[in-house]
């Protein structure tokens, strides 16, 4: 009996993270990962291999249709759309993952506390979380950015804080399930501190949930960043950004200049789909 109590509790009850071998066998994951990898490379090195400067204007060659010289045509200032799409990955892939990471860290901590401690804390904070969730995320982000001013840091903080209650609610549910299991009773019995139980015992067991939540939220974050840029909350209009480039050019679609909007839109769609393919693959493997 003593031996049982002294055995490492985490080894007994820890849920397994997805087997990467199983994940790698899924075609959806491979396709998604390849697309994601392509955009990450573009974000890091896009300006090195883009055929033109993403900033260079040719005022006498505006709105040129796709051609051998400009694969995706030129925009209203004569800039090469293909180069701007490649380099435009940088702004979105800088903000979205960091914002998602922030939201995941904070949301997980909050979810652990709400799910494990429960009681009055869960009742009060839980209602606040529900109140926050009742307001559309983009509206909250919109208000914050108007109040604080647009910058990459602001966007990361705002989106991170918006995701915090969403992730917290999911993690809380997972923690409540875990709380019913015997290994936690055992951990309490041997006198582990509340903090230790939450972060050393429960957290490893809800990590699959957190991982899936992270990948799902990353897709939403990309869409939110693009939406904010589309609404005019980008940092600098010269900076290549898919959302702000769509905003700047969608008004000329009717005039026949479809390429200036279509290609940045396809870039956003491809990135979101890629992340969803990855998230879906992980989720399916976890589900068995």
């Amino acid at each position, binding site marked *: 009996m003593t031996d049982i109590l002294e055995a490492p509790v985490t080894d007994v009850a820890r849920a397994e993270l997805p087997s990467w071998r199983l994940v790698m066998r899924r075609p959806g994951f491979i396709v998604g990962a390849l697309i994601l990898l392509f955009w990450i490379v573009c974000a890091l090195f896009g300006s090195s291999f883009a055929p033109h400067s993403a*900033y*260079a*204007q040719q*005022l*006498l060659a*505006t*709105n040129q249709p796709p051609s051998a010289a400009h694969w995706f045509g030129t925009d*209203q*200032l*004569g800039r090469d759309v293909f180069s701007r799409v490649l380099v435009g990955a940088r702004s979105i892939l800088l903000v979205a993952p960091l914002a998602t990471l922030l939201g995941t860290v904070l949301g997980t901590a909050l979810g652990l506390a709400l799910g494990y401690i429960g009681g009055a804390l869960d009742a009060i904070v839980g209602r606040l979380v529900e109140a926050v969730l009742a307001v559309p995320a983009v509206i909250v982000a919109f208000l914050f950015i*108007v109040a604080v001013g647009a910058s990459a840091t602001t966007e990361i903080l705002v989106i991170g804080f918006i995701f915090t209650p969403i992730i917290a609610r999911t993690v809380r549910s997972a923690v409540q399930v875990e709380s019913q299991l015997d290994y936690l009773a055992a951990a309490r019995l041997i006198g582990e501190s509340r903090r230790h139980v939450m972060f050393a015992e429960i957290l490893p067991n809800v990590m699959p949930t957190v991982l899936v939540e992270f990948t799902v939220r990353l897709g939403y974050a990309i869409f939110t960043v693009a939406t904010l840029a589309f609404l*005019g909350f980008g940092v*600098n*209009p*010269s900076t290549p950004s898919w959302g702000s480039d769509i905003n*700047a050019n*969608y*008004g*000329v679609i*009717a*005039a*026949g*200049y479809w390429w200036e909007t279509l290609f940045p839109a396809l870039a956003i769609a491809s990135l979101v789909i890629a992340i969803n393919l990855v998230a879906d693959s992980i989720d399916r493997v976890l589900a068995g």
Partner: protein
Amino acid sequence: MTEYKDRLSRLRGGQNEIANHVIDEFVAGRLSRRELLRRGALVGISAPVLGGILAACGSSSPSPSTSKSTSGLSNQTINVGIITPAGAINPITIDDQGGLDMLGQTGEYLTFSDQTLTLQPQLATSWSSNSSADVWTFNIRQGVKFSNGQPLTADDVVYTYQLQTNTKTGGNALSALGGVLEPSGVVKTGDYTVEFHLEAPNGNFPYLTSSDNYNMIILPSGYDPAKWQSSFIGTGPFVMKTYTVNTGATFARNDNYWGPKAKPAATNFTFYASQTPGISALVSGAIDVLGQFTVTGGEELLSGGYNVIKLKSSAHRELSMRCDTAPFTDPRVRQAIALTLNRPAIITALFKGYADLGNDSPFAPVFPSTNTSVAQRVQDIAKAKALLSAAGHPTGFSTQLIGVNLLEIPDYAQIVAQAAKAIGVTINVKVESSSVYYGKATFGDSDWLDATMSLVDYGHRSVPNVFLTAPLQTINAKTGSGAWNAAHFNNSDYDKLSAQYIAAVDLSTQRSLAGQIETLLLNETPIIYAYFYNYLTATASTVTGAYPTAIGHIFVYNCTKS
């Protein structure tokens, strides 16, 4: 020859000194036909007399720009799309295009500034000034009735002008009339005669009574302007039937109108938050007339299939550089930035050619007083680098440009930033919504007025007075001068020249002073004026008779549909 002189002599009879000077300038060849019409109307020479002078000299008058003339049907309902009014339709507070469009449907002005910037009589039948141009007398049209049946008299004009010039009401018209006319200067001298005693001589005063100064529709004496939205009371060719905030308005023909009756039986205005849905509505046939569109986003309408009315205008963008903030304290730095711009290319890129070149002064090509002998500034990177180096910035510097998010302004800001890179200057562009950018529109509480570099929109005016005063004259909180001086430009020579220009009555004096102002501003370059864009209106090909003005009105009383 004797007969010609006799006819001119008869036509001169009854004209005052200033009017005869205008006639002299035309006879001497210093005024063109169009300029005679414009200047003559300004100083109060009636249309028949102007026509007589042109006929005596073997000339004729220009025709207005309306949508193409074809045989259409009257008594139709004309559907019009305009930008959504920004607030309540109140003649005191209106400061936006949608609002002024609504005022102009039922309201009328003492004078009307037409598409050629020529003044036409409207509720005033004639006007004239004393020799020093500081007292102007207007004769009011008789037999006019407001839509509530009340007859128009001098009392209504006095009431309207005293209300609009009262600083306590804080009306938008003070941007033009402030410092020009006090309420006490509006004097009734007869049942149908009003005198305006100005604070200082002003040769262009009649323009301040025109549709250009769009708030100045004549209200019935004692009428509360805050209630105007409920009645749209006025003397115009239409009466309001319905008005729905943020949605639209409908009007019916005013059968008691004093002038030619409107051709449409009714009009239906739909409000759009931006031009894109307005263009879609015109393309789909939901509307017949689109009040205004811009080249950026409006390319479809320029590609054929629609009647496009193109008006030269003085509408422009002002790129201010803070003359009291380093590095722009040195005029060489300001000149260097201006020299980096390839203006013809900017006009091609942003306006497909539908704009005129700016020469870093508010004197637009459309103004007759613009002195065209002053050389046009052109792109010169080598000179710009030399100026920057001489000013102590051989490797350039970094600064920020804040602009308002409106139409082509974000693109223009990016072009400026890209051009400045050629001389090593890094300009970080920040584009803000209008509410953030304008802030409280006072110094210390407005990015528009406080930014190191600021890019703002200015609408059309028929005369450059406002452009010469509010954004360029030295800031003085007591007098209110320089209220929009985002460049914080402070130059006593400029202040004197601009005051002299405003007081000047004859065109040759105005041109001479304009030349001096243009040269001074090129040397100082507190503000870059790169272009003056055309005002564009579109109608369906089946519609004729739409009459826009570059200030933003759209008049459809002559519209027919086939």
